[in-house]
């Protein structure tokens, strides 16, 4: 997490430097400082005070506008990085003996009561319950138990059509856990990049294994990985802005 945050900070500083108007930012920040100084110096002069406040607000507004473009550009790589990090940090993998849910969401056109469903679990997995169909939510769920390391995928057969879902391997430290496989759709694929998408014409919208969320631990305090990631990236960004001569 520290390394990724460091690299993110470097990347963001680079993008910010290249996409922002550094000279204008420097100038507007000087203006803000000057207005603040005026506010302190002319506390007894009401007219000057008002005028300084007006200038301060205008400078602030300009500062925000100057930041808008680089931030807009930065969102794209940040989004892609977050989607990847989510795979690595958001979920714990299941250990042998533990159970988890398998949820399959279908498209609206599917007749849930007439559907022919079958689940084939690979070696190392036991299907503990018969299928549970939630008709109005177009969902079918099972409970599975992990007995051992699984090397093959789960096979879900819907009206004779086969679909696969990989089962994340047992990990004791850092590892990639893909919990959701989605139907071909750019937005969904960007959000859940862990597995090759299901065919676009598939009756299944998504297949999900419900794994427990993971929290990062620092001195006995648990953090969501997003908190740690943003905090560390900001700290690194602020620390590196001078050596890299970036005006933020």
């Amino acid at each position: 997490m520290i390394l990724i945050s460091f690299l993110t900070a470097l990347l963001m500083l680079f993008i910010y430097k290249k996409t922002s108007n550094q000279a204008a930012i420097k100038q507007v920040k000087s203006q803000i400082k000057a207005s603040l100084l005026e506010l302190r110096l002319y506390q007894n002069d009401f007219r000057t005070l008002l005028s300084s406040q007006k200038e301060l607000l205008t400078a602030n507004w300009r500062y925000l506008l100057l930041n808008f473009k680089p931030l807009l550009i930065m969102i794209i790589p940040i989004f892609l990085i977050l989607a990847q990090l989510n795979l690595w940090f958001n979920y714990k993998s299941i250990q042998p003996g533990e159970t988890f849910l398998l949820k399959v969401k279908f498209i609206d056109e599917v007749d849930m009561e007439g559907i022919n469903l079958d689940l084939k679990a690979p070696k190392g997995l036991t299907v503990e319950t018969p299928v549970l169909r939630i008709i109005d939510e177009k969902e079918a769920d099972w409970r599975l138990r992990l007995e051992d390391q699984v090397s093959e995928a789960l096979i879900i057969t819907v009206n004779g059509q086969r679909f696969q879902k990989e089962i994340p391997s047992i990990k004791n430290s850092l590892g990639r856990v893909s919990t959701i496989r989605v139907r071909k759709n750019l937005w969904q694929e960007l959000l859940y990049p862990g597995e090759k998408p299901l065919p676009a014409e598939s009756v299944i919208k998504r297949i999900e294994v419900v794994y427990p969320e993971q929290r990062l631990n620092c001195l006995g305090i648990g953090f969501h990985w997003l908190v740690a990631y943003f905090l560390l990236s900001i700290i690194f960004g602020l620390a590196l802005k001078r050596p890299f001569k970036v005006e933020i």
Partner: protein
Amino acid sequence: MGRIKNDEALKRREFLQLILGSSVGLFLSPAQAFMRTTGQKETELKVLALGFDGMDPNLVNRYLKEGKLPYFQKLAASGSFLPLQSSLPPQSPVAWANFINGTDPGGHAIFDFVHRDPKNYLPIFSASESLPSEHNLKLGKLIVPISGGEIRNLRQGRAFWQILEDYDIPSTIFKIPSNYPPVETKQKTLSGMGTPDLKGYYGLFNYYTNEYKTVTEEYGGGGRVHDVYVIGNRVEARIPGPNNPFKEGHPETYVNFKVFLDPVNPVAKIQYQDQEFILREKEWSDWKKIRFEFIPTQSVSGICLFYLKELRPKFKLYVSPINIDPAEPALPISTPESYARELARKFGPFFTKGLPADTAALENDILDEKEFLYQDDLIYQESMAMLEEELKNFHSGLLFYYFSNTDQRQHMFFRLIDRNHPAYDENLAKEFGQVIENTYREMDKALQLAMEKVDRRTLIIVMSDHGFCPFRRGFNLNTWLLRNGYHYLRPGLRPEEVTLFQTTDWARTRAYGVGLNALYLNLKGREAQGIVSPEEKGALLKELASKLEQVTDPLTGERVILKAYLSQEVFRGPYVSEAPDIILGFNRNYRISWNSPLGNFPREIIESNPQKWSGDHMAAPGLIPGILLANEPARLQDPALEDITAGILSAFAVKIPPEITGRPAFGKPD
């Protein structure tokens, strides 16, 4: 241990709420986290005490003879096996307090499960009390406590592990009863019997059903039935939580949940907060966390078990009492506070409610025998796993470890080994007649585990607080007092409609019964409307004791009360003045009735007990001693609970403080 059953569920709920109600919100945790824990001394001798609540010497003897308890046999052969004199009365909170303090009840002030407030004659719990925050800031409907509330352990005097602490001798005290909230100490302690659930009750289950017969808003005896409807293969309901101390009127908090049923398969998914899990019909969940929010920044966490009893034709879902989450305890359950969290880290969620078995669910036919035993077996398995862990960490000093299964299962299954019990059932006896024997054998396995793990320098003590006997017939003390001219009711309600002495004419009443073994005089200067003068007291007590000892059961011809003890004659210590005036020592097969303890006046003086709660221990202590086994010969022929306390101190060569009245049952002679 004993239990009070009241037909009027609402009143019972109100009563419990009055006592414990908002305690969850009152607890502001002290800064215990950084305290040094437990004594440091490396002791030459170690003491392991296993407490099997309610283990009966007669049954132990029988199973020993039949060769069913090999490790009990081994231990007895290596040292001693004696009946252990119980407390007066032989109720668990009293008996374990005798052991904790090394005194009779006069030294610790726990005389019964229930005491009474002499100012208003109302029953109060004897073990602990919750005091609300004294200073609150009111902002509209929001209440902001300025000062912390307090939960107080009402057992007086010092616990023996506090004395050991003075000598730097480490102790771990696991779930000993009569220690909620745990008394201040640096030793490791986890509270046991007396610890409430998250709602502040001693166990309130929830039951969701669309079955017509059980559709009632409140259900007596520790549970609530919720009327639900299955619409579109879906059930929506709510789980009630603790009362909200931050809102005016302290409304009950709740968590909404949904159950999705498969249209054909016997399987359902339960969903609330961030939890979703599938259960098959007749399947139990593992522990599930549940969080109740008071205000956006304040919430408490609990844990509960779900049991999907039936899906069709009727929907039946049982939710266990919500236990305090040991990973984030909302109430003080351990010392240091981190001990509960440490256990939760190692074992995950575990039973924290004082008496974890849901006897009320079995009593009310919510769980059947098999289902009750499944849950109680979870408790046993959990106890065994934790015992193993504690034994692994047991390097010095003392380890006390408690099992509740013996007590709870005997309460509920005595009817199936007693052919003369009104609730005896031939078919059930065939299936469950071995439950008590099997339970004793399970305790033998616990002893085996202990004997295999400890080293040769360990003194092993196996003890129980009392024995057991059948509870076939119940005695209505207040009805007897009424019929014999010691108690008077004002006209209005019929006696059997009265509860909590609501129509008692205190200006004429001389005596009343509150609690399970207790009789009080309406004493001038002590009770709010007392009429019995101190001069009359002695003669009246003797008269009452003599008459009570003569009460015979017309059905059997047996005496109901073997001995009526005058507390001034039998107790010693600074708290004798707080004791009931007479303690009833019932004959075998008898006990106080279900309705008398809370100030009710049922029609019959003596009535049959048709309930599943069929074994009990409110007899004269001599009839139901506990057990004492050890791997060294006992120094006394007739040891009592408080003698074990003195024996433990003596074994560690600790000077026995003068307030301890017990004689050392172990250790080197002086």
